């Protein structure tokens, strides 16, 4: 009998030997070989109760058995992804028949500054290097054909779950890739609306990846474009694509934020921070100030903007200070008539929503999460700077602030 112990191995006490063996014997009675304990470690994380490998093999067999999809005659187009807050080139009303829309996303783990003032940073997990990931736009009945690649220098496993898709955990079950790998997934956009997508590698890694920025949105337009409640067409001049991201950054004892050498190194401490359900930051487009000041969104009086708001993890309540939501699909579904004339709308965690507004006054508008603590202290603020002429009928400063004598 060979017993080999590496030099670094802890000495094994006689007590351990006995305990291990007795446990093994007891376990044998119940048929289980594994015993677990977490004596010195707080907060064990439960394993997800996913079906075992046999069930997954059944799905695999059914996929192999399935008749091939008939894609004959479908035109292929390539959609070039662009960085948020911008939207890819697209038609609002589809011309021609459904198409196969090819998109490419590259998983890129990169160190990003969350807040310059405090030095808070995160090894963000991104699709195409941005938080949120790029906006994909197709029409109902189009096919999205995604090539998902992971850079060789990445550290972790990733995949993608499209809420707009049908089957295999939103594609999550078919797209797990390791650094240096790629995969291609095709899915049909059957439901019109705006939808979240996000990474979902399994168990606690799901919120870990999602709360490191690994999420974004797909917009599936009705083939004949957006409509109001009476069926009249609605069009927009611009899209503002806003991804709200809650971060849970681990802190040092003195309250400063921890820094890490590598993606993945913050796993245990991130899990502890996430367990509080209290984000250290809630920001638009990856970092504090990403859409304010010189980075503000721009528009003009008379122009219509479609604001797409994605929040893959946590409820939020967008509000345009100084303006409104003229037409709002707050649940994201374009199958439903939009709500009209809203002050604040609700985006459920794990969804995207859309709000349309036509600017009527020039100046600065703040677009915020109207939990104002999150807007002002955690970072959830964007600005629109709007050019054009002032309308005194809508608002006029009748008396400038002056001493009242009261």
């Amino acid at each position, binding site marked *: 009998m060979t017993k080999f112990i590496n030099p670094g191995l802890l000495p094994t006490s006689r007590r351990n030997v006995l305990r291990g063996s007795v446990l093994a014997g007891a376990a044998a009675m119940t048929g289980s070989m594994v015993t677990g304990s977490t004596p*010195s470690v707080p907060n064990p994380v439960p394993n997800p109760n996913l079906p075992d490998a046999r069930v997954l093999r059944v799905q695999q067999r059914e996929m192999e058995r399935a008749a091939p999809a008939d894609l004959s005659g479908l035109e292929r187009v390539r959609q070039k992804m662009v960085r948020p807050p911008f939207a890819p080139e697209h038609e609002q009303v589809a011309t021609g028949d459904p198409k196969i829309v090819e998109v490419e996303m590259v998983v890129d783990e990169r160190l990003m500054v969350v807040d310059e003032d405090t030095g808070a940073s995160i090894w963000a997990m991104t699709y195409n290097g941005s938080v949120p990931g790029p906006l994909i736009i197709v029409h109902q009945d189009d096919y999205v054909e995604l090539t998902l690649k992971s850079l060789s220098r990445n550290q972790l496993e990733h995949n993608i779950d499209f809420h707009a898709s049908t089957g295999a955990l939103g594609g999550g079950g078919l797209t797990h890739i390791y650094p240096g790998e790629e995969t291609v997934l095709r899915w049909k956009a059957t439901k019109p609306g705006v939808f979240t997508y996000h990474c979902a590698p399994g168990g606690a890694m799901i919120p870990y990846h999602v709360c490191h920025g690994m999420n974004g949105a797909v917009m599936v337009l009705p083939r004949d474009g957006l409509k109001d409640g009476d069926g009249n067409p609605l069009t927009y001049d611009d899209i503002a694509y806003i991804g709200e991201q809650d971060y849970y950054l681990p802190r040092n004892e003195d309250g400063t934020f921890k820094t890490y050498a590598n993606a993945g190194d913050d796993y245990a401490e991130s899990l502890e921070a996430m367990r509080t359900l209290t984000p250290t930051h809630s920001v638009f487009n990856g970092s504090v100030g990403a859409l304010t000041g010189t980075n503000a969104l721009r528009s003009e009086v008379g122009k219509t903007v479609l604001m797409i708001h994605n929040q893959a993890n946590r409820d939020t309540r967008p509000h345009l200070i100084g303006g409104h939501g003229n037409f709002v699909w707050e649940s994201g579904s374009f199958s439903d008539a939009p709500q009209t004339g809203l002050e604040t709308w609700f985006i459920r965690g794990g969804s995207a929503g859309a709000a349309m507004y036509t600017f009527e006054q020039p100046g600065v508008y703040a677009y915020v999460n109207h939990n104002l603590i999150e807007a002002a202290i955690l970072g959830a603020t964007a600005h629109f700077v709007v050019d054009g002429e002032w309308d005194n009928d809508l608002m006029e400063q009748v008396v400038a602030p002056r001493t009242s004598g009261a």
Partner: protein
Amino acid sequence: MLRSLISTAAITLALSAPAFAETFEVQMLNRGEEGTMVFEPSSLRIATGDTVKFIATDRGHNAESVEGMMPEGSEAFVGKINEEIEVTFDVDGYYGVKCKPHFAMGMVMVIAVGDGDAPQEGFLEGRMPRNAKQRFEAQLNAF
């Protein structure tokens, strides 16, 4: 594995095992001699019936068997994150073990049970992250 044993056999084992079975401890670490995210030791040879206890020295790790990297007739095991599981190995052969969240970072180890001087056929053939494969290769060479 032991599932196939009837209870009398299990009792016999429980009574007789302390005479020779041993428990080995493997630490789950954020940083060790092989780099970041490691099991230590990462190559471990044990005798049939010995137990390995995975120690959560650092948090955020787990220990679980790698599909396709276990001898025929053995059972898969999965520890929770931060859980210190003890696994008894009754089937001879080579076992690949991984930490699920850090598999792609190469947090793996090899446990050789019994005297076999080479892993079973196809041990390294499955799809796995590059970092994991490199470390598995080094760990096999260390035996």
